[in-house]
């Protein structure tokens, strides 16, 4: 009986791994090679905004931003943790943090794994409060 439970658990595990891999391959982020232009709009703590048009061959957002020296931060196990955008550094002691959206929509990827395409529009905003 217990062997049967173990077998069922192992089968469930294998099936779930297969489902996860298939979903990642089908719906995961896909990078686009070649030249592209993306727009990055930065909203600073004082409410001022600056817009940058970036022409790049990079496939992910981080590469495009670093090409223009727009971001800096700490390397983490999940990629770059953005602390500075356009020269303004978030003061974590004041619960400040940089967040970003794509055409106003939430992005579930860090800048390292966010694929970019020609015409994309990203908005970086300095937020206060966790």
């Amino acid at each position, binding site marked *: 009986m*217990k062997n049967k439970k*173990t077998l069922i*658990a*192992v089968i469930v*595990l294998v099936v*779930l791994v297969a489902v996860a891999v298939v*979903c990642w391959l089908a719906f995961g982020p896909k990078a686009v090679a070649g030249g592209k232009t993306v727009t990055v709009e930065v909203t600073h703590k004082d409410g001022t905004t600056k817009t940058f048009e970036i022409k790049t061959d990079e496939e992910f957002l981080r590469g495009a931003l670093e090409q223009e020296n727009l971001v800096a931060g700490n390397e983490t*196990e999940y990629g770059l943790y953005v602390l500075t955008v356009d020269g303004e550094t978030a003061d974590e002691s004041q619960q400040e943090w940089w967040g970003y959206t794509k055409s106003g929509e*939430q992005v*579930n990827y860090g800048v390292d794994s966010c694929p970019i395409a020609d015409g994309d529009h990203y908005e970086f905003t300095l937020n206060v409060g966790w």
Partner: protein
Amino acid sequence: MLLLALLGAMMMATQVALAALPNIHLVAVFVILAALLFGWKSLCSVYIFVLLEGLIYGFSMWFINYLYVWTVLAILAICFRKNRSRWFWTAVSGIFGLLFGALCAIPYFFIGGWAAAFSYWVAGIPFDLIHCVSNAVLTCILLMPLYRLCTKLLGRPMEND
């Protein structure tokens, strides 16, 4: 109660110690161990761990996830606590690691619907796969030796498979 608190603290300490490694930690091993040893009382260890996490990392969105995700594993482990098969718990721990992202996506379903929850889950699949493998390997290696050690320290008879 002291042992339950100690297990909660061990979950926290080992999680912080391994924080540099993405989704590799011993929390699932300790949650299952606590469930095997203490049954429903193990939920005290789980919530001590969750509270300590909140105190260290701050109480934001992720904290809502932590309020129920570890409880899911604890309840699952309590339901099967008579099972002493190393491979059964290896599989359960792996399944939990794989489903971690899906469980954490639940609040996004209420905020933004299926599309938001699904895209959140998909974005985390590589980390879920790492979580799955690391949970399975660590549980396979450590769970039963830790269980034998704890039963010996507690002066309990071993419950074999």
